[in-house]
């Protein structure tokens, strides 16, 4: 311990865990896991564009995740192709474009793995700034819409009839999701970002009696698995992001199995 790269990794991971926890709860409650996956995979296009134009990668990823969110809002208005098929289509089209673009930009030597699965040990001080400022903005926005967003997640018509401006609240949520995905990609990569959102929330669900409790437990699971994952990674020389996700999966298994064995639903 005490190595600067390790401290940066730890701070980056824990910062992300704190903002990912409440957001991940809403992703689970609103059944938007696949939506988040699509936005995250599209982030690869942002990385390719950022490399080609020598831009800040987090900024270029953010532009792309916001653009894809807007595109999805537009596409959700047609009904010829079901939304989940559309997400599958877009996610893989984005992945294809991203991989091809990355290959053209830097040649096959580019470390694509670092962008697909993240490189938490390569986090720089400027990355940390992005994570904490972006994370603080995301968290503040989420706290601001918490009540109406919770209400419309429980029953949208009921919330709307009671006067909640549902479209505006949903828009804030989608923007926050795009922002958090953009700051998460450096740490856990385009393929593991959504895991980092939904796994702590899913592990927290069986233990929780209230929505706020679930968000809190999710933050604790997330932060613990960052610390444990980094320890595993250093000890066994395994990749950082996947090690964290593996620990999260174990937390989820430990949380859900008693419920399954007791026969509760």
């Amino acid at each position: 311990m005490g190595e600067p790269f390790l401290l940066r990794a730890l701070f980056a991971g824990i910062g992300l865990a704190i903002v990912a926890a409440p957001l991940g709860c809403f992703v689970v409650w609103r059944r938007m896991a696949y939506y988040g996956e699509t936005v995250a995979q599209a982030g690869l296009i942002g990385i390719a564009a950022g490399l080609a134009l020598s831009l800040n990668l987090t900024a270029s990823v953010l532009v792309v995740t916001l653009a894809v969110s807007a595109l999805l809002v537009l596409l959700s208005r047609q009904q010829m192709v079901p939304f989940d098929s559309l997400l599958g289509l877009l996610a893989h089209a984005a992945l294809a474009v991203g991989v091809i673009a990355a290959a053209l930009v830097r040649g096959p030597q580019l470390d694509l793995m670092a962008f697909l699965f993240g490189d938490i040990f390569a986090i720089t001080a400027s990355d940390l700034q992005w994570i904490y400022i972006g994370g603080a903005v995301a968290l503040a926005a989420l706290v601001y819409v918490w009540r109406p967003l919770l209400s419309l997640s429980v029953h949208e018509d009921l919330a709307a009839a009671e006067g909640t401006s549902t479209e505006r609240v949903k828009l804030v949520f989608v923007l926050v999701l795009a922002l958090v995905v953009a700051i998460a990609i450096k740490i856990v990569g385009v393929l593991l970002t959504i895991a980092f959102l939904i796994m702590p929330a899913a592990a927290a669900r069986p233990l929780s009696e209230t929505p706020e409790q679930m968000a809190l437990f999710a933050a604790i699971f997330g932060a613990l698995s960052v610390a444990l994952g980094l320890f595993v990674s250093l000890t066994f020389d395994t990749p950082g992001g996947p090690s964290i996700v593996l620990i999260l999966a174990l937390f989820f298994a430990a949380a859900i199995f008693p419920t399954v064995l007791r026969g509760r639903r």
Partner: protein
Amino acid sequence: MESRDAARDRTSHDADRPLAPAAHREHGDLDHHHHHHADATTDPAPHDANALISARSLWLSRAGRTILQGIDIDIAPNEIVTLIGPNGAGKTTLVRVLLGLETPDKGTTRRKRGLVVGYVPQRFEVDRAIPLTVSRFVGLGRRAEDDDMARVLGEVGAGQLGDRQLSELSGGELQRVVLARALVRAPDVLVLDEPVRGVDYVGEAELYTLIGRLRSEHGFGVLLVSHDLHVVMAQSDRVVCLNRHVCCSGVPQSVAQHPEYARLFGPQAARAFGLYHHSHDHRHDLAGEPRPPPATGRPEARSDSQSDGQ
């Protein structure tokens, strides 16, 4: 963040209009509405300025089917309006338009400025992914102090359910809790869309008695959707019989005897109604009197087919 004004009073331009010429409904009066498709072109009657919710000439089509055909409706303070009609008559669609959840193709809806709506939707499916206690759910309607919360839960006979998970409730309990969420808002108007799914006949009658009593205590207007005039009759001030257009409207007895009602529901329904009316005449007179809260100490209204939202 819950900006109430945005959803309400969409046509506020005529909010200051002077009192509309008397749209009086004397008891015993019966308005008979013919199909007039000419409605679409003629000027609609002005909105009732005293109404909580007032709609004029609502037309709405979905997928080539005209669901609402020139509907006029008003809900006044302290009035229970019951909307009845066969399946597919457009009852739920009309309620959704009145609540601003759906936009009509033609016509105007006016809600009183600052109107507070309490809504009990037709289907309430509990989402087990969200951990939620009963009191947390009720509190989503409005931030409520502890004694406010205890009072509304008590009013609907759910006083002991506050700490239970929403997903553990029976159908009858859930229905009461959703009603409590509507009440905690201290509504000007209570809108209930067939709130009795999965509840047996006794539970149904009990619920309507409760709503009648709460109306007397709080003085809010009520819009009630029902498939069955029998059980709601004692509590209704006015019945609107809907079959895409308004077939007939008036006090319950007159609607029950109306040929359009008999045509829609069959002569048997009209006869059965008459019998019910006689044997329960006293109930109508006592509707305003305080009665013991329905749920405490009684067997819970519950049907096995729907124990919760699973």
